[in-house]
């Protein structure tokens, strides 16, 4: 019995070796002459998206650097402008030296904003702020997880069903 099993395994190994050798000697099959033209046609019919409509990773390096620099400058300028406007309009409103209704309204708005922020800062402890930040991060993570679960459940499973 053992001898027969050994013999079968030996035959299997011999067959594997022979077939492997035979298959390795098979040359590649010649691709159809139509393949090249089909690929070229398919590529020609693809409408290439302009670079600014592709993902950020596919943008040209110069455009990516320019975008980063411009965004940073814009953020810095916005913060500086807001701070300057807050300071100037607040003092103008306080001195009641405003000549137009628009500037007067703006100065009132900034004065209220400043008062509110000072009040909140005095009321809220740093641990409370930290707690809010942690809660926000947790909510963001939960939303992210929910989106992944939804994608996998609704999109990937649907695709799998189509394939099978």
């Amino acid at each position, binding site marked *: 019995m053992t001898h027969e099993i050994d013999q079968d395994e030996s035959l*299997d190994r*011999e*067959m*594997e070796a*022979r*077939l*492997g*050798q*035979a*298959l*390795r*000697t*098979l*040359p*590649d*099959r*010649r*691709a*159809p002459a*139509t*393949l*090249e033209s*089909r*690929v070229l046609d*398919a*590529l020609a019919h*693809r409408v290439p998206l302009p670079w600014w409509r592709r993902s950020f990773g596919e943008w040209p390096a110069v455009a990516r650097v320019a975008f980063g620099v411009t965004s940073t400058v814009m953020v810095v300028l916005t913060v500086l402008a807001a701070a300057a406007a807050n300071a100037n309009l607040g003092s103008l409103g306080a001195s009641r030296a405003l000549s137009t209704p628009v500037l007067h309204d703006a100065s009132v708005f900034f004065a209220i904003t400043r008062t509110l922020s000072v009040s909140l800062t005095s009321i809220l402890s740093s641990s409370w702020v930290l707690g809010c930040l942690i809660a926000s991060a947790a909510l963001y993570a939960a939303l992210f997880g929910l989106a992944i679960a939804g994608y996998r459940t609704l999109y990937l499973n649907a695709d799998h069903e189509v*394939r*099978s």
Partner: protein
Amino acid sequence: MFMRAYQNMVFSTASRLAGNDAQAEDIAQEVFIKAYENFEHLRVSATAGGWLKTVATNLSLNYLTRYRKRWRLFSESESVPDVPLPDNALDSLSDEEQRTALEDALRRLPAHQRVPLVLYHFEDQSYEDIAAKLDISLAKVKTDIRRGRAALAPMLRLRGIGGAS
């Protein structure tokens, strides 16, 4: 130039796995479109051929997966086609004709035998990798490959390898 260098290899890979020339041409087309999308990397890569072969293999398996239910249904009942091959019937064929006959015999194997056989012998994948990739048991992989080899055995005699006649 790039495509001409690899199109036979890509088509062969797809054809042997899919077992269908029309589908293999579709798969090869898809492979080269993907290659076009990654051409910046591929044109300077020393492993472009391996990349193309891997993509062709994966796309072929995706194609087969679409028909998996049908494949599984038939795999339970489908038997190796009994094409009688008399021992000396094709001995007079030239080497090229014998290779063509072996290629045809391979393509005629049922998918559940052909695919693991091709992955094992052409792609040098292990039984375990094949089982994982095809989502079937290791025992079934071994059985299917063994039966596939048995079905091709007469072709080995024709090719005069090992003198098993």
